[in-house]
């Protein structure tokens, strides 16, 4: 029989998980060139919600509806529009050939990119992670402990540890929804950018351009390869082109499996704290094991 049993109900386990979940956050960014446009993004990612279900035979922790909050999320598009020149037409042709008087020629969209469109997409993506996890009891041999006695390591905060990780058996990322407002955000941003770019032009030039292009917003959408479904376009850009959703999935799996234990304690464990002139009483904990059943998690071990 094990010397120690420590049992956490599903409710207590949920408390442990929420503590872990709330400590996870990451920022990421990337950029790339996609033909006629470039894009870069910067995202902050954290987790909220989620429900826990403990399973027996096999021992598993099921986590579902773990909300992935991508906030802030800024996407910056750089678009290289085809150069358009307006004017330059001959008003008074020369009878000897050539032209005596021409309208001035105005060329626009000569730069690359011509317009930069910053989009604040914070909080518009609703996504979830679900998965099944084993609980892995692993022994962390603290490298900073090397050359120290256990008591020296205690006083310098370099003790070895028993750590308990959620080791993924399977894990999924579900993109639930991209808010419909993304279309309006994009169109408004394009119009704002175009206004900023063309605002200095004479009215007749802007009218001519609009006539020529049949709506600049549509041109920009076309260049971005947005056909109908802007949600799908954004999902492809972030998820496929940038691999943001895979990044999130890998990040969550790695943090849970390797970096953030759901629970840990020092080994040897200070069963009596230090007192004036007295070292702490450290007891080694051996043979640590984890068992999960339908209602609780049980950690067992022996005192060495």
């Amino acid at each position: 029989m094990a010397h120690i049993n420590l049992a956490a109900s599903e409710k207590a386990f949920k408390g442990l998980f929420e503590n872990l979940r709330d400590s996870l956050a990451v920022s990421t960014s990337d950029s790339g060139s996609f033909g006629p446009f470039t894009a870069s993004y910067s995202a902050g990612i954290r987790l909220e919600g989620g429900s826990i279900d403990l399973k027996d035979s096999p021992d598993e922790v099921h986590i579902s509806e773990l909300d992935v909050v991508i906030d802030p999320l800024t996407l910056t598009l750089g678009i290289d529009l085809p150069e358009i020149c307006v004017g330059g037409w001959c008003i008074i042709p020369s009878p000897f050939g050539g032209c005596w008087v021409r309208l001035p020629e105005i060329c626009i969209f000569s730069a690359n990119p011509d317009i930069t469109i910053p989009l604040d997409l914070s909080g518009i993506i609703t996504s979830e992670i679900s998965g099944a996890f084993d609980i892995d009891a692993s022994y962390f041999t603290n490298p900073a402990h090397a050359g120290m006695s256990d008591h020296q390591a205690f006083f310098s905060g370099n003790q070895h540890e028993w750590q308990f990780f959620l080791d993924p058996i399977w894990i999924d990322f579900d993109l639930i929804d991209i808010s419909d407002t993304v279309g309006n955000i994009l169109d408004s941003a394009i119009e704002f950018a175009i206004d900023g770019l063309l605002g200095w032009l004479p009215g007749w030039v802007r009218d001519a351009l609009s006539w020529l292009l049949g709506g600049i917003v549509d041109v920009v959408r076309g260049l971005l390869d947005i056909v109908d479904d802007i949600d799908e376009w954004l999902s492809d850009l972030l998820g496929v082109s940038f691999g943001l959703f895979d990044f999130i999935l890998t990040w969550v799996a790695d943090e849970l499996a390797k970096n953030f234990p759901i629970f840990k304690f020092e080994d040897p464990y200070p069963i009596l704290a230090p007192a004036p002139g007295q070292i702490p009483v450290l007891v080694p904990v051996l043979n640590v094991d984890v068992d999960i059943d339908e209602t609780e998690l049980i950690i067992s071990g022996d005192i060495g």
Partner: protein
Amino acid sequence: MPLTDHSDLFASFHEDGFNHIIRHIMTQRPSLFNYSTQDLASPKYEPRLCSKIEFHLAVQEFNNPLVTVLPYMPIIGYTGPYGLSYTFQLTEFLVDFHPGNLITLPTELNPPLNEQRIALKGKVCGGVSCPEREITDKLIDELIDIPQDPTGKDRPDPEPPTKPIPSRKVECFCLELYATLQVIRSNGFIQLRLDGLELVDILPNGLENSLECYISTSLRLGILPKVRIALNDLVFSMNDFITIAPAPVTGDIPFNPSVSNNQLNAFLNLI
């Protein structure tokens, strides 16, 4: 039945594990179990007591004491600076959680072990360093007789002794002691409280009772309160991750902590 049927967290320590913990406490806090006068406590890590002290290397590494130093024992009627050296040690400590299976209690402690109780078997060693005759004869010559106050007042009380009477050896004895204890929770700590204590085979009864009284009082006031374990440490610092508090005593949890099935059990809830 799930361990957490009536609380959010449950921790249990089997008596075998608890006895391991006691062994670690005895080797890492030896001064809690070993007492003597200064002369017998020297050299610091090779004291001249009745029973050899096993201690953890870290005790010496961190310059912790092996022995709690006590004042010299006054000699009745003697008013000089010398006192007797002595030692007192608890050398063995074994606990047995209800139901009793490791320790056979003496009849004086009304076996079998009651529910929610812990049996303890220990060994107490002690001794007085008794001076040889020639030493005491020599000291007689040095005695300072304080004259009677001519006004008829009482003599002043003698000063406590400051020096040990030289002697070659400690007259040692060891006694087996048995006790029953209960576990109580106090201010976030779990500690043992002494119910009854019995020293085996000492006569006359008055001497036995006096020794039992002294050892009981030492355990109650001196030793057991210092071996209290923080409730949070019983659940391996779970409180660093979630906020917990002891579960209230209810019909489902009539004792918290409880001692049953050879285990010490603690029930805690999230708050």
